[in-house]
């Protein structure tokens, strides 16, 4: 049954062979990838060269779906870019490699190869950031490469220490062993938190995140925010499972959530604001996973799934806004109310990323907070609630200003339908969860 994950990895590569017509082949490939989720679900659980369980499946679902949405959104967006740093065909080629690297990191049953997958995502995605070429995007790309590579290199020490402790890097073999509380194992997990945490967006090693997200083209920012960071979080979670260091993980997440909320409160650039919102959401998910409870795990998965669609929708909308207004400054934007599609998708996605009921993010955050209380982390609970409040007010206030304030200037030009679909999926996830919970209770 190794064939199913292999097909998932090979399809985008086959699509890349048709380089002259890569735009269409990538779209077809992305649609097939979403359909491949059905056999993958039926295969679950699977242990071999690949490791697929329910957690893996949710992450693969996220990555495949956002890859499809980004591919569809890119068709017009990338074509319209005037000062392009890379050609349109190269863009799709790199996008395919980027996607394959993420799927590989998620499905492979080996910590070493997971590290390889995460490092490959950096290499394949770096040049995507200069699709819209400018001096700032070049600087952001370089910061992304150097900071993330340095962080992930540090994570390699963790891989070495895991091999030192267990004599193998196979995930299932290590997780099947009894939890061993040795200094080396603790060190491995702690170093992974800092190393892979660089890619997850943990404070203070998050500095590449707002730069890359704000300077990348909208579909790439959506991929970064919606699925790249969760992929790194997944790898970090698999290492955390070896020896759950609850205190350190929850504290690291809590401090990062607080700083993310503070940083996003004074942003003038709407893309940077959404980037800090990603940092905030990823760290809440980290807290949920860090609690080590089943409720925390479910909450994190729900949050990540709903957030991926919501945040992808938010970034696609920023692409439309940038295209129409020509600026990233929130102060210079007003009156989007007249453009029904853009204002609706912006509102839907900003509600999604700030955890408004009945979005999946709301239920996810609720479950995570519940799990934090259940392990008696009261100080962390208070800090998280305070940070969530700041983030909620800051983002929704800024978005409301962009939509409702001033003259209605942008009524004639319409935006893409993809952000709206993305925002609706995010709310649908919350409603489906509510229906399921209601049926269970």
């Amino acid at each position, binding site marked *: 049954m190794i064939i199913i994950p292999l097909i998932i990895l090979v399809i985008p590569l086959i699509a890349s062979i048709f380089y002259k017509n890569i735009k269409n082949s990538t779209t077809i490939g992305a649609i097939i990838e979403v359909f491949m989720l059905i056999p993958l679900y039926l295969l679950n659980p699977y242990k071999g060269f690949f490791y697929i369980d329910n957690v893996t499946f949710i992450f693969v679902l996220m990555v495949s779906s956002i890859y499809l949405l980004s591919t569809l959104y890119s068709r017009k967006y990338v074509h319209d870019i005037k000062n392009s740093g890379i050609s349109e065909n190269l863009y799709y080629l790199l996008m395919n490699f980027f996607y394959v690297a993420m799927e590989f990191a998620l499905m492979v049953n080996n910590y070493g190869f997971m590290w390889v997958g995460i490092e490959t995502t950096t*290499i394949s995605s770096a040049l995507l950031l200069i699709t819209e070429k400018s*001096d700032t995007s070049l600087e952001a790309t370089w910061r992304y490469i150097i900071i993330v590579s340095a962080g992930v290199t540090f994570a390699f020490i963790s891989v070495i220490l895991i091999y030192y402790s267990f004599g193998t890097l196979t995930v299932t073999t290590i997780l099947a062993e009894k939890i061993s509380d040795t200094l080396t194992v603790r*060190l491995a997990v702690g170093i992974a938190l800092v190393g892979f945490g660089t890619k997850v967006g943990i404070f203070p090693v998050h500095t590449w995140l707002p730069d890359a997200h*704000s300077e990348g083209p909208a579909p790439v920012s959506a991929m970064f925010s919606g699925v790249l960071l969760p992929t790194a979080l997944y790898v970090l979670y698999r290492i955390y499972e070896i020896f759950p260091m609850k205190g350190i993980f929850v504290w690291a997440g809590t401090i990062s959530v607080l700083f993310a909320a503070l940083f996003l409160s004074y942003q003038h650039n709407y893309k940077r604001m959404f980037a800090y919102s990603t940092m905030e959401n990823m760290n809440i998910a980290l807290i949920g996973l860090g609690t080590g409870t089943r409720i925390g795990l479910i909450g994190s998965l729900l949050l990540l799934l709903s957030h991926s669609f919501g945040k992808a929708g938010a970034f696609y909308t920023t692409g439309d806004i940038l295209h129409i207004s020509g600026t990233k400054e929130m102060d210079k934007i007003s009156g989007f109310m007249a453009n029904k599609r853009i204002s609706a998708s912006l509102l839907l996605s900003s509600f999604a990323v700030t955890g408004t009921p009945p979005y999946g993010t709301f239920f996810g955050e609720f479950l995570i907070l519940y799990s934090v209380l259940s392990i008696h982390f009261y100080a962390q609970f208070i800090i998280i609630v305070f940070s969530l409040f700041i983030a909620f007010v800051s983002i929704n206030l800024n978005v409301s200003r962009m939509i409702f304030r001033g003259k209605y200037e942008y009524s004639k030009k319409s935006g893409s339908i993809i952000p709206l679909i993305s925002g609706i999926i995010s709310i649908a996830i919350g409603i489906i969860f509510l229906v399921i919970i209601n049926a269970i209770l």
Partner: protein
Amino acid sequence: MNIMYTIIYLIAAFLAITGFHIQSEKYLRSMVLGLAIQSSMIALISFIFGIILNSYTFIILGILVIFLRVILVTYFLINKIPRSLSYVYESKVSTTYMLILDFIFIIISIFIVYSISFIHIVTITYPVKNILLFPLLLFFQGLFLIASRKRTIAQVLGYVEEENSLIILGVFLLPVPIIIESSVFLDVLILVVIFSVISIEKNVHEKMEELRG
């Protein structure tokens, strides 16, 4: 066999010296050559281990280091240095102060990381465990180089130095599967290629108003 281990220890100490040399060097070209010497030392250590432990994986590792790091990476980097820029030293802080700062940073880092955690780790391939001090020293040296320099090429050198430290850490601690080790080399090579693309447009990295906050 003891003499072989002593030789390895001396070469490891020499690695640390190359790290300080690269940090203090004013000329970009000399910095690249310093890194090539550092990589050669790592290959040499790997070959000696291959002979002592009778393990072919160390020999393969040594060959990979020579081919990718000493030859290819050096070739790429040297070719990217414009002749007019080969002498440029971007920092306004004098070399002496920079080295003192470097010493302080490394001593504090090593004290925290080594004395608290790595001191308890027993090396498998080498009889004396304090040999781990050298890869750690090299790692922080690389980090400091990235942080202290503004030029793209100097930051790349810091990154390659960091990865050099991981290879040597893996060699001293235990032989990590060669397939994982090789990916580290591939990683460096591709990063250098990306560097080549970016450096065409941007050679120096300063603070930018758009990326503040």
